[in-house]
């Protein structure tokens, strides 16, 4: 891939759920390698839909998404293959409750990347140690706290060695005291230049590690800027109003 080509190119993305307002209304955006793009906005603004469209968990009504130069909205392209390179972290963790943590982490690499059990477990163990949960490898998800579950969910996505990580409100379902441990993991990922798209309400995180912040409302990108400009010099009245309420 050429140096200046975006990792993800979003073109005229539209999603119609049949409601009065389009969930996504002709959204265009480019996400480049190494960027941490933080998407914020009021609920119902389309920010989660935007993120879920990036790996086609939500199928767009119109528009194109190019991932590493390939149009993944084209049904002729093998979506499953591209999804392997897009790690996804959900608000509700969505760990597989009937598998041990180790199995949760290794099933993808073993079945999809055809790694050997040893290889997959070695990689999983390394990542578990990084997030401080190596001792939980043989536990089941229900034996863990919310913060632990979310850290495991991040590791599960990382085990596939993705080129981009998508976070859909990763801390919204957590007890306040567990938010920090998850954000810490995400910050360390950002420091390693992982490309990340994060939908969140954590303004502190957006400011600290974001390379770009996007504000969405009514399915449109209303404003986007570097974190400092975004928070200190909001252009639109709507964003000023929003920031006043949340900060």
């Amino acid at each position, binding site marked *: 891939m050429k140096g200046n080509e975006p990792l993800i190119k979003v073109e005229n993305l539209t999603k119609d759920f049949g409601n009065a307002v389009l969930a996504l209304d002709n959204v265009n955006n480019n996400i480049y390698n190494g960027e941490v793009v933080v998407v914020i906005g009021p609920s119902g603004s389309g920010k989660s839909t935007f993120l879920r469209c990036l790996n086609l*968990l939500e199928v767009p009504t119109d528009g194109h998404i190019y991932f590493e130069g390939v149009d993944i909205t084209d049904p002729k392209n093998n979506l499953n293959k591209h999804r392997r390179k897009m*790690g996804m972290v959900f608000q*509700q963790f969505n760990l597989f409750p009937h598998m041990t943590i180790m199995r949760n982490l290794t099933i993808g690499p073993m079945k999809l990347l055809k790694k050997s059990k040893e290889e997959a477990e070695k990689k999983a163990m390394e990542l578990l140690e990084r997030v401080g949960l190596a001792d939980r490898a043989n536990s089941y998800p229900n*034996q863990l706290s919310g913060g632990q579950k979310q850290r495991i969910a991040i590791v599960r996505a990382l085990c596939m060695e993705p080129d981009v990580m998508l976070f859909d409100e990763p801390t919204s379902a957590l007890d306040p005291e567990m938010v920090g441990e998850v954000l810490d993991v995400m910050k360390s990922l950002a420091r390693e230049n992982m490309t990340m798209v994060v939908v969140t309400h954590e303004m502190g995180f957006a400011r600290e590690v974001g390379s770009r912040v996007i504000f969405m409302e009514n399915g449109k990108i209303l404003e986007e800027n570097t974190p400092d400009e975004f928070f200190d010099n909001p252009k639109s009245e709507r964003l000023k109003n929003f920031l006043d309420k949340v900060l």
Partner: protein
Amino acid sequence: MGELIYNIANIFVSDDKAKWFVTELYNNFIVDNRWSWLLKGLGITIRLTVFAFIFGLLLGLIIAVIRVTYDKRVDTPKQSVSQKAGRFILGILNAICKLYLNIIQGTPTIVQIMIIYFVILADSTNKVGVATLGFTINSSAYVAEIIRGGINGVDKGQMEAGRSLGFGYIPTMIYVVIPQALRSALPALCNELVVLLKETSVASMVALQDLLAAALLIKSRTYSAFFPLIAAALIYFVIVSILRNFSARLERRLNSGER
């Protein structure tokens, strides 16, 4: 041997009723080793139940997945030719499954078994095989609905998580959704096993030597209905009780353990 039992009984019970009881017991179960007929019949009943249940489970699983897949399909604006063809085939399969479920659930088991036995596979000499097929078809219709409920009960985030890792729809079903669906459907499946066990007694109507047929055979030799039928009922009851007990324990374990 017979005389010995009679003499022993005489020592303990002296009135006529007791003597009649012992004689009946003797005639119905000891003469010609008639107890072993019941045992053989039980063997066939169990074989029929186990195989019909396993095959019914597999068939029901396939039907359930087709039905759920059809119900949850999303029509995307952009579809390749192969996707359109897939949709079309799915629609046809779903219609077939629905018709199948309606017919099987809307007709009596005994009529289904007789149709298979006397009409569709009238030439077959493998009686147990034909009966197994009949009960497989019957059971699959009920199992399909049980499993469909189980699949619908699995959080939709599970499918999304599997897909986001890069698993296709069917692999995600196999590795992620179906294991959880079966687990929550387990009590209902155990119940279906009990129902099936009892229902296999219908097989005696198509000349299969199952437990009930063995009891009826004894009755035809001894002209006494009470002992062989009560014996058959007792055996059914004991096996059902064991299954029920097992199912209750399983359920308790699932409810208390991690889910």
